[in-house]
């Protein structure tokens, strides 16, 4: 009795929040309703006694996936008015897609049959009161279906590598930092004490003060960018030197104490 009440509460909230995911006007609210839906699904798993699945659902979907959703959605600059302009135009297409999916779901579920060898699964994982469902799941996944499980993992790995390959570009303008080089820097590399003559100011020094060897990582050849771009940049740098420190006329420059 109690279990049934709890089930219907979780199920009702789940369905309601799933509806709100689609209906909410603000996309951030949609994601938050999605999180609520995940929670209620976890609650349903708990009622079914699948405590491991319930916790994993919360950790993976709520703790990681939905955070990324929220991240993206919060940073999107969505113009709600413009977004709603197209609703009239696209409603027929959406309706057709929805209708096709609905018919397919009905066809799938009306012909749903439980496999005849379903009780074999019970032999693989004998249930006993002391056996936790973490151990039972581990047994099925890692002992009896290890090759299928590893194939799934390989597919995911390929997808992951594909995503990285597609998005990782060696941008020539990127300033990639080299932590070791940053740590290796010493005051001698980056700092030079100039003696500026009194009453002359930095104008006489060529505009501003800077060390002879620039401390900018960009001036170290081969530190970043593509080879062609690096060569081009080095050439530009030598041709159009921005600042050349030359001792101003009439002073002895740096040696002037």
């Amino acid at each position, binding site marked *: 009795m109690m279990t049934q009440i709890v089930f219907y509460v979780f199920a009702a909230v789940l369905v309601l929040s799933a509806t709100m995911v689609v209906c909410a006007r603000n996309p951030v609210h949609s994601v938050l309703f999605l999180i609520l839906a995940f929670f209620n699904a976890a609650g349903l798993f708990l009622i079914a006694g699948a405590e491991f699945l319930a916790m994993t659902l919360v950790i993976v979907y*709520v*703790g*990681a996936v939905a*955070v990324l959703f*929220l991240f993206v959605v919060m940073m999107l600059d969505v113009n709600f008015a413009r977004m709603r302009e197209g609703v009239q135009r696209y409603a027929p297409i959406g309706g057709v897609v929805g209708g096709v999916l609905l018919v397919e779901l009905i066809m799938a579920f009306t012909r749903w049959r439980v496999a005849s060898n379903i009780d074999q699964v019970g032999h693989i994982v004998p249930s006993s009161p002391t056996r*936790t469902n973490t151990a039972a799941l581990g047994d099925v996944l890692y002992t009896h279906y290890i090759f299928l499980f590893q194939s799934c993992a390989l597919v995911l790995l390929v997808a992951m590598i594909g995503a990285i390959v597609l998005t990782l570009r060696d941008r020539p303008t990127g300033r990639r930092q080299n*932590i070791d080089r940053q740590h290796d820097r010493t005051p001698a590399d980056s700092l030079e004490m100039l003696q500026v003559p009194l009453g002359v100011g930095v104008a006489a020094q060529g505009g501003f003060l800077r060390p002879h060897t620039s401390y900018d990582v960009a001036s170290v050849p081969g530190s970043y960018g593509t080879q062609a771009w690096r060569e081009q940049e080095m050439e530009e740098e030598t041709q159009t030197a921005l600042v050349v420190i030359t001792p101003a006329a009439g002073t002895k420059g740096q040696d002037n104490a």
Partner: protein
Amino acid sequence: MADFFFHTTLGQLLLIVLETLAVLVPLLLGVAYLTLAERKVMAAMQLRKGPNVNGPFGVLQAFADAIKMLTKETVIPSGANRMLFLFAPFLTFSLAMVAWAVIPTGNGLAIANINVGVLYLLAISSLGVYGILIAGWASNSKYAFLGGLRSAAQMVSYEVSIGLVIVSVLLAVGSLNLNDIVLAQRNVWFCLPMFPMFIVFFISALAETNRAPFDLPEGESELVAGFFVEYSALAFGLFFLGEYANMFLMSGMVSILFLGGWLPPLGIAPFTWIPGPLWLIAKILFCLFVFIWVRATFPRYRYDQLMRLGWKVFLPFSLAWMVLSAGFLMVTGLLPGGAG
């Protein structure tokens, strides 16, 4: 009397309420005094006196702060999303509280001694990011939003290595039950054989609770106060309490996973006289002292350094250690297998 509590529905409900109060009341008092302890300890480390006006040694300072917080005006920015703006601090605070349901304070002494206790803790701590993210977004302020984003990225990054560290502990235990994890440390606390993981976990806990040197989400010099810049009065107080309660929770996790929970350091006479819960409290307090010590010692990390540490140092290291310890346990035959 015992019959009433154990065999009637009403009695069991009452029992749960009493158990919850027995955990939460000391916890909230502890949180109140942790704020005072932090100021006192940091003052001592910086050769100052710290709060010493309200009551002897400033012991009433915590209550003075609380009263001040309660009597201030709650300001809600005009562009803010009111519902979410008020929801965020309650979420942060209540998440820091509900996690304590599974922390065992003695053998079998937990409000809920569940089989997947570690996963429950991991799930609850991974939800903590929502309070901060929602607060940052709902405030409708650039600084708050940047703070929220920083925090989300930081917490998600360090959760990965926390997860791997927990896996290597679980390998040695063979159970996800927190009670079993403590009992597995009867001979030796896990902080000795897994010392590097202990350090990784502690540093990740610092990042997870947004504490110095990883307190970039708050970064007062560049983000004013980060995600709670727009909060005042009770809402701010709830964030504040939630953050300190999270420190308690993380210290509790360190104590249970690595410092033997309620177990005394040696199972001989003078140590066993002290009851288990007191040992757990002592260990939690020690961890909290180290939290404060770290804050008084280290400068804040740069954000890229923080990310590099999480992804390029801790993640490969904890992964390698996990594989290594699995192999070691397998070869030596110490792997607790087939227990379930």
